[in-house]
């Protein structure tokens, strides 16, 4: 086999520009009545994208919302045409970017399997041969003759996913399907991904979830504002993605620095020394009522509070105040964290005000052996 055969997907010099008219002319009448030259705005969504996916690779594409990854996926799958550049696909490509396309609530589950299968590019004979497998995987044996509108959303997703994985093509495009379904079904999906990976199929996988990038991908790329920031190993990808998130969230913080109200509290990051792994943040408050107050903060990861501390013992009745705290981030695993703060009345222990904006920070790095928030030391003793 020569090099040519090894390439599954080759994207070269790809640009995509959307031409947005300032006033959209949707009717012939408008075209005839307003014959002056229309003005356009050009939106350069993808800029000079170059990458190659090898045969059998599990390739991740990550990027924040609006970074152009959906557009890239649509161009790869042939839904959009590139403005410049080429996309070369070696083999057949599963052309879908979403599950359950064409599902009709008025048709039965069975009818939808055949309709959706045909849209995915399966022949009727192929769908017929795989029908039982689809039904079994979706665990919907008893419901196939019911109309789809009577299905729960979870059941619909299960059915859609079960059909999609049967569309056996050389290259699979998967776009964040994992965000749906219950834990049990998600585990099954992951098993399927392991299978697909073992079968040596080429998979292009678009996601926000760095854990799945680490778990499945061989390589990946990070998109930022339509540019490729990096093409590299999963760890490099995960780090680059976190860096983008960090700079983006600090930009957002600058935007919202408003003046404090009568009774208000605000939290902001003062300094993050990544080398020393020390995060210094500040809680500022205003207390017009002149009652005794103290402050408190919570550190949150993935919606779960992982630590709380208040300043009881340092309460006072000043009209305003500022406190700083230095957090040792070696206690934390890599990931995305938020800090919420509150102003609390000393007499009745009542929360007077909570911060509207939370401070955000990222602990960089990636470590396969660690999960959740607490950084457990490697104190294994092998016996």
């Amino acid at each position, binding site marked *: 086999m020569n090099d040519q055969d090894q390439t599954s997907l080759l994207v070269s010099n790809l640009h995509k520009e959307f031409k947005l008219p300032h006033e959209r002319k949707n009717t*012939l009448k408008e075209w005839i009545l307003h014959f002056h030259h229309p003005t356009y705005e050009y939106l350069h969504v993808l800029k000079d994208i170059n990458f190659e996916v090898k045969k059998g690779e599990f390739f991740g594409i990550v990027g924040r919302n609006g970074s152009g990854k959906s557009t890239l996926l649509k161009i790869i799958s042939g*839904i959009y*045409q590139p403005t410049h550049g080429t996309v070369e696909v070696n083999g057949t490509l599963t052309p879908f970017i979403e599950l359950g*396309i064409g599902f009709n609530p008025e048709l039965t589950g069975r009818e939808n399997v055949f309709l959706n299968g*045909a849209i995915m590019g399966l022949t009727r004979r192929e769908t017929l041969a795989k029908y039982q497998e689809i039904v079994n995987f979706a665990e919907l044996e008893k419901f196939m003759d019911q109309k789809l509108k009577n299905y729960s959303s979870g059941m619909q997703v299960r059915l859609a996913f079960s059909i999609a994985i049967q569309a056996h093509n050389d290259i699979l495009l998967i776009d964040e399907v994992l965000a749906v379904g219950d834990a049990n079904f998600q585990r099954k999906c992951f098993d399927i991904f392991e299978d697909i990976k073992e079968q040596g199929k080429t998979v292009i996988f678009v996601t926000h979830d760095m854990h799945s990038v680490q778990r499945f991908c061989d390589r990946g790329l990070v998109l930022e504002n339509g540019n490729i920031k990096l093409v590299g190993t999963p760890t490099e990808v995960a780090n680059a993605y976190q860096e983008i998130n960090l700079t983006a969230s600090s930009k957002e913080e600058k935007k919202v620095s408003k003046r404090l109200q009568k009774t208000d509290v605000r939290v902001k990051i003062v300094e993050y020394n990544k080398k020393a792994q020390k995060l210094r943040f500040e809680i500022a408050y205003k207390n017009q009522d002149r009652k005794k107050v103290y402050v408190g903060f919570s550190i949150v990861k993935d919606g779960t509070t992982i630590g709380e501390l208040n300043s009881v013992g340092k309460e006072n009745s000043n009209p305003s105040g500022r406190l700083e705290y230095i957090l040792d981030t070696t206690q934390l695993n890599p990931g995305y964290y938020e800090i919420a703060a509150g102003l609390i009345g000393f007499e009745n222990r009542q929360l007077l005000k909570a911060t509207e904006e939370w401070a955000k920070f990222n602990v960089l790095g990636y470590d396969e052996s660690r999960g959740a928030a607490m950084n457990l030391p490697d104190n294994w003793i092998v016996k």
Partner: protein
Amino acid sequence: MKLSIIFRPANRSLIRELVTSDFKLRYQNSILGYFWSLLRPLFLFGVLYVVFTKVIRVGEAVPYYPAYLLLGLVLWTFFIEATLSGMNAITGRGDLIRKVSIPKYIIVLSTNISALVNFTFNMMIVFIFMILSDVPFRWTILAAPLFIIELVVLTLALSYLLSALFVKFRDFSHIWDVVLQVLFYAVPILYTLTFPPKWIAQIISINPLTQIFQDVRALMITPEVLTTQELFGSQLGRIIPMLIIVIISVVAVWYFRRSSHNFAEEL
């Protein structure tokens, strides 16, 4: 576009699923669904029949006028159903086109096939009616499908053209409504070509629909139907309308292929 692409198994299955699901959705809530769909055209036929045989005696110009009228209405029903559903094919399937790369022409084609299936059912009723009204059987009936094919080519070409135009200009549905209304009277559906003065009849006969309708009727019902060829006294009466269909088809294919790349972005 190679014609063989349409007949690839995956594309055939796609057409089949689109057509069958369309039928299931249309007639699912009643076994009599199809017969309900006949109610409107049959009622129209009844009204026109009474008006044109009892009130204004247009019907006396040709033998078997009721069969002539019914066949005309059935052909016309196919024409409007095919072009209207064809025009809406792309915009109506925006959910598909934005999310999956499937051949767009198949979506338009499937709407016309649906209309053709309905047309086939309706033709059964025409046959029954012809037997009941003692229309003599002639072997020329076997040639009628040739002109039906011509009609299908015309509706397909118009469907491709209209569906692409409709993506860009959303007022095309109103325009096409008006055109259909004019055509209903500009094509001899209710009357015969012997009725208007000859020069008007000749103008009417340039329209491919007139040529097709008259040829099909002459082959199926009675040779006394005045065809466009007889009206012009030469094959020109067929060649001109067919040429118009060829021109529409070429324009339609060119325009549809040119604009279909951008459907996903414009929808």
